[in-house]
């Protein structure tokens, strides 16, 4: 059990390409941290530097207080679960799990106790004698986790462990991973490109893009208070709508002018925050779930309404998605499935302006 410190870490490949551009991150003991971002954002490289599979070009990484920059992977006391599981194809499940302990010269009895204990946790006791080839994807995933658990390492590292599974199994294994972490409480660093996985698993989510950390925080905080346009657009599904707008001050009130016919009032409690930007061209960010059908008797403050003509209507079951275009920008709204909507028919919509974001297009930061 240990904390992980990443200080000013840089990864530079031959030819000067920087995959990681000097990041700082403190991971607490027992914490479950998820690194998330699009492919090529440096999240996997960061994980592999923690593991010792990639050399660190600059800065330092410490595990449990000691700097590990020059310590080979085997002496870092970490365990890793790979995307393709990397199970040894010629060994039984038992031997796969025991291999690391055997190399570390653990007594036979201790190895057996640990493997059986891990098999118990993961419910794979009956599979111990099988070869990886005879296992299903989910079972292989469990064995890969078992291999990590038996080692009882300071840190668990997961490199996109669920991306080879089908959608249903992925949800199931996600729960499983969460359960295991609650049982063993080992500090965990988990890499994924799937923001749903990140949100559901993490104590804290680290959003990376182009080799830098965009934002770190608990899932709810990232959802409600994104600090950059990238995080605002990356977290949440379907993604947040961004609509160019103009912030106009008229007699003490602030309004967003989306176009000549759509003007949305800024809620009173936000006026102080945005006042300095009055008169600027900005980006209006609103999530689809905050653009809904107009409900009668809903008189919450900050609710604005307008009309739009959806071009595509997608019934999803639990909700209905409406897509319409405004000056070349696709906009998505989420309606209650009970409301009948026809494509091509002008429909009234409600916007919850309390959930709005304003983004400075010059810095891409959320105001």
């Amino acid at each position: 059990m240990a904390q992980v410190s990443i200080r000013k870490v840089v990864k530079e490949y031959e030819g000067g390409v920087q995959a990681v551009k000097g990041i700082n991150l403190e991971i607490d003991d027992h914490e479950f941290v998820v690194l998330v971002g699009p492919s090529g954002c440096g999240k996997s490289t960061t994980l592999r530097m923690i593991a010792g599979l990639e050399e660190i070009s600059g800065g330092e990484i410490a595990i449990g207080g000691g700097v590990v920059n020059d310590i080979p992977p085997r002496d870092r006391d970490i365990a890793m679960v790979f995307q393709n599981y990397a199970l040894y194809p010629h060994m039984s499940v038992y031997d796969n799990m025991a291999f690391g302990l055997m190399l570390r010269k653990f007594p036979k009895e201790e190895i057996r106790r640990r493997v059986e204990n891990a098999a118990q946790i993961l419910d794979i006791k009956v599979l111990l004698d099988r070869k990886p080839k005879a296992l299903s994807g989910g079972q292989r995933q469990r064995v890969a986790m078992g291999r990590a658990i038996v080692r009882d390492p300071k840190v668990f590292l997961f490199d996109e462990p669920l991306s080879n599974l089908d959608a249903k199994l992925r949800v199931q294994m996600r729960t499983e991973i969460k359960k295991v972490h609650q049982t063993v409480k080992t500090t965990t660093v988990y890499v994924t490109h799937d923001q749903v996985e990140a949100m559901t698993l993490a104590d804290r989510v680290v959003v990376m893009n182009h080799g830098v950390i965009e934002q770190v925080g608990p899932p709810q905080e990232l959802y409600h208070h994104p600090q950059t346009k990238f995080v605002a657009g990356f977290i949440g599904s379907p993604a947040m709508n961004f609509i160019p707008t103009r912030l106009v001050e008229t007699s003490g009130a602030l309004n967003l002018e989306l176009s000549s016919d759509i003007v949305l009032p800024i809620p009173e409690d936000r006026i102080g925050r945005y006042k300095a930007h009055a008169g600027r061209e900005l980006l209006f960010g609103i999530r689809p779930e905050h653009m809904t059908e107009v409900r009668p008797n809903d008189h919450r403050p900050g609710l604005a309404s307008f009309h739009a003509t959806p071009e595509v209507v997608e019934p999803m079951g639990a909700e209905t998605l409406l897509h319409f275009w405004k000056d070349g920008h696709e906009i998505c709204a989420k309606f209650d499935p009970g409301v009948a909507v026809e494509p091509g028919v002008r429909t009234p919509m409600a916007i919850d302006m309390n959930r709005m974001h304003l983004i400075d297009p010059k810095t891409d930061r959320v105001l």
Partner: protein
Amino acid sequence: MALDATTITETGRPAAPATGGMTLQRFARRRSTIAFLMALPLIAVIAGLVAWPAGYAIYLSTLNRRMTSFIGLGNFEILLDSETFRMVIWQSCIFAITAVVLKALLGFWLAHMLHHIPTKGQRVWRGMLLLPWVVPPALSTLGWWWMFDPSYSSLNWLLTAMGGPSIPWLGEPGWARASVIIVNVWAGTPFFMIMYLAALKSVPDQLYEAAAIDGATGWQGLRFVTLPMMRNIISITVLFSLIVTFANYDIVRVLTNGGPRDLTHVFASYAFQVGVLSGNIPRGAAVSLFMFPLLATVAFFMLRGVNQRNREMA
């Protein structure tokens, strides 16, 4: 708790490798030392048993018969002046080219036929047809020698039984040359067959299905799908076989031993004759070295083919 630190990059980076870099470098050096040590026996084999003898062969070829004085290119001049050796050059080239072309065509035909019968039966046929490749060539050539034997030839018996003429297989130069080619083709066709079969199997069926839907006939499928997909393997196999056939020794040695009248000698058997049997080591080395330009050319094309293939697969 940390946030992004883009600005730190510039100041933080130069300092860090200075401390971390030293040991990392040492680690990398240690790793490549181990790797080098593991490859050392291989390097020893290549350097000691291939590169060094190759250089030594060049040196030897410039000596006189008793290896006492340097005579420059004398051995090569004498060889080129000799009627027998010029014949050896011709015979080697004709033998290698004819044999390789026949092996390539027959091998391709058989591979194609094998590919077209139901998968279940392929194993058995493949097993039978590969047998000539498995038997050590020196030994199977003995069998052929016996079948060609002038007084008891079982082949001639078959020919006469079918009303054909009796052929002086090894007695007459033209037939002797043909016999050498026949045996080589017999022993080498299975190799081509098996290589092409592997290549045919690596062409995805969907490509043929797509071609068929695009309106290709069987022949067009072969011409526009199979051959382009196999081009690389075909050329690699042909080039490789060209080297092996060109340098062949076993068949000539057992079947004709160069005769009649030294007319079936190829480079290898002639080098053996001159260098080992007649004891003129330098001239024998010179004969062998005559193979080098052709081998180098073929090797060059092969290396290019292999590299190309690796690039395509990457």
